[in-house]
């Protein structure tokens, strides 16, 4: 790439089912926090990138336009990018190309989601993500989609439900140290997950991350000016993104090949030749517990079908060999679609900078990978951050 991109600061708001603040105000609270950590003012920001997922949640058409003043975008070049659930990592990728191309020196990335506006339940808006001709007449519920993918994954690899439930337990316990967390629970057990209400088998209530309101933000700058702000910068090592066919019923769902392709693109850019060795910790997207396993495999961090075993053996614990979702992930902290940048990218930064407080992973992590996944099980976005 042309110019190295450094992360200067990050911020995020509380994640809850419904927050009092408007989308603009949430964006402001997250952006301001990131700017304070980075030590910059609004007039130092050259450009702003907004990442926010479906308009149908906030209930505002062209909601990027509506949110822009809260993201410090007033009277600035401002653009919104979007690819469903993948936005949480895609917006920071877009921010990366603003700086890496040399067009901007300092770029603010804000992600916001307000799922609570959709009344009575965001499920109403999720209904409109399906194909209108083939799927919507069957009145599908979003959970079905993931239940079907989970079932395929479990059946092909012959994985036990309890091995997957362990992931939910790990993440909800990890989230205990996170001030924004919605569903942290220090005492949760595998039995709690297995005995929770069956929504759409094999998906049970505690396998799912909750819909939330929230926002997150990060500040980037180019290597040329980084000396002005910090002596110990964290850099973006590589980025990758990839999309599969709209026709989700035309492919085998047991392995996310698009995640693997995005990961390869990212690793190539970051000079990661041996992912299992070179990567110190990861934040794969975990809206459902099986998704963490699915994506760990997609990120080439283990062999196909082996990810649940890693958790069983304690490898993915915060003090394990390969900590996964040390933030608590979506399962523990909450799932405000795009604003999950807070767990998937901000967390990488805080961990690498040694600022994660109670959630800090031991040792001396140098490379972390974050990933998000979106659209109708077809989009993968991957980012790698490194220290020094």
């Amino acid at each position, binding site marked *: 790439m042309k110019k190295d991109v450094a992360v200067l600061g990050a911020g995020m708001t509380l994640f809850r089912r419904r927050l009092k603040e408007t989308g603009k105000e949430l964006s402001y609270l997250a952006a301001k926090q990131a700017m304070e950590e980075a030590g910059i003012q609004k007039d130092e920001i050259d450009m702003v990138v907004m990442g926010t997922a*479906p308009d149908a949640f906030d209930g505002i058409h062209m909601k990027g336009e509506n949110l822009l003043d809260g993201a410090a975008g007033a009277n600035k070049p401002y653009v919104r990018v979007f690819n469903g659930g993948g936005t949480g990592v895609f917006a920071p990728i877009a921010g990366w190309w603003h700086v890496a191309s040399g067009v901007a020196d300092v770029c603010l990335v804000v992600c916001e989601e307000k799922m609570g506006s959709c009344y009575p339940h965001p499920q109403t808006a999720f209904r409109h993500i399906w194909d209108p001709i083939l799927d919507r007449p069957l009145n599908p519920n979003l959970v079905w989609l993931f239940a079907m993918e989970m079932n395929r994954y479990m059946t092909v690899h012959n994985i036990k439900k309890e091995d997957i439930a362990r992931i939910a337990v790990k993440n909800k316990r990890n989230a205990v140290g996170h001030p924004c967390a919605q569903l942290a629970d220090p005492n949760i057990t595998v039995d709690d997950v297995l005995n929770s209400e069956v929504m759409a088998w094999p998906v049970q209530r505690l396998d799912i991350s909750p819909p939330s309101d929230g926002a997150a933000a990060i500040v980037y700058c180019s290597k040329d000016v980084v000396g002005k702000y910090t002596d110990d910068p964290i850099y973006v090592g590589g980025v990758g993104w990839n999309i599969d066919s709209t026709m989700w019923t035309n492919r085998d769902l047991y392995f996310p090949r698009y995640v693997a392709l995005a990961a390869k693109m990212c690793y190539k850019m970051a000079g990661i030749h041996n992912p299992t060795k070179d990567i110190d910790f990861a934040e794969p997207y975990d809206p459902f517990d099986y998704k963490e396993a699915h994506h760990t495999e997609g990120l080439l961090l283990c062999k196909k079908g082996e990810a649940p075993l890693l958790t069983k053996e304690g490898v993915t614990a915060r003090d394990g060999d390969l900590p996964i979702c040390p933030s608590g992930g979506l399962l523990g902290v909450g799932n405000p679609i795009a604003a999950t940048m807070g767990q998937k990218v901000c967390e990488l930064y805080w961990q690498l900078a040694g600022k994660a407080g109670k959630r800090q992973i031991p040792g001396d992590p140098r490379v972390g990978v974050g990933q998000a996944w979106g659209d109708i099980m077809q989009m993968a976005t991957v980012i790698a951050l490194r220290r020094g």
Partner: protein
Amino acid sequence: MYEACNKAYVDAGIDPRKDVGSFITCAEDYWEGFSIFDEFVPDQIGALLRPCCTVCGDGLYGLGTAYMQIMTEVFDVVAVEAHSKVSDLLTYGDIVLHAFDPVYEKPVSGPVERPWYGGSPEYSEQDPKPLIGATDEKQRVHPYFLAGLEMQHYLKTTGTTEEQCASVVVKNKKNAYANPYADYELNIDVEDVMKSEYLFKPVKKYDIAPNVDGAICFVLADDKTAKDLGIEPIYLEGFGWCSETPWLSTRGFDALYAKKAARMAYKMAGITSPKKELDVIEVDDRFSYKELQHIEALGLAKPGEAGFMAENGDLEIKGELPTNPSGGSLGVGNSLEATGLQKALEIVTQLRGHAGKRQVPEVEKGLAQAWRGIPSGSGAVAVFGR
């Protein structure tokens, strides 16, 4: 979309499945009717299992994004697509209204309950729905009222007349005759426009660009790749984009977004006196006054001057500053997020000398400008050169 993209790939002589590094679509969910439109993009633009994304902005934002992606030196070739399928929308007005601020603006337009199809859903006693003091309003005002407000402001502050705006309509609809892609060519005179009814005074029926369907695809490449492909390339020399505050409450209504975007684009393209250096321009004209307002914002005329230029024929194809030779949105139609690409396409066609009857003689540099439409205060500018 497939047709437009295929044409672009054939024109560039490339195979999208092998040669294109990254794909960009410019779209908004509510224009399409899907909660996550990005899902429905990859197959038809050839992006299966490739880097592909959606930029929620006008097509020119897509070009800017492609430019940045190429400048990172990660990609050689990037495809940008934008489209409009506005004819699928049964409730266009209400969808545009849905973009207004929910707390301070939307409810002013009329009843908060669903006005047309099938009434409101039933909610239980506990639910918050039954608000006290419901109103007896039945209709919501069409969101284009905002153009009425802004045109009023433009006419007052610059002294431009409604007749001058009408001459823009006449010119653009006439230019559209020479454009095979245009849908709204019309042979009318200023008097016809002036006699058309006031819809949002002072905006008249003919002042508004009617909606149209279409898809446009651009292929951008770095210099070396383009030369290897053996094409005489048109260069994207500069671009800029900017957003104003979304609050009507504090907005200035003088196209500040276009001024700032132009400044950025001129700087990048090394343009110091735009009036002399630009040979042909395409500016956003979804309302007739917008063309004049944007010409002034781009620094090509002083405030109040553009109206006289329109009246004197300076903006015609053979005039001093040929503006919207394609027919603009008034002549071609308002193609939502594809508007910017339609304008960029015209500039590229002009620079290549392929514009046929509407060709502007001796063009070296051209500019395309787009606005994101009501109610936004965002827009982008791109400068092209041979």
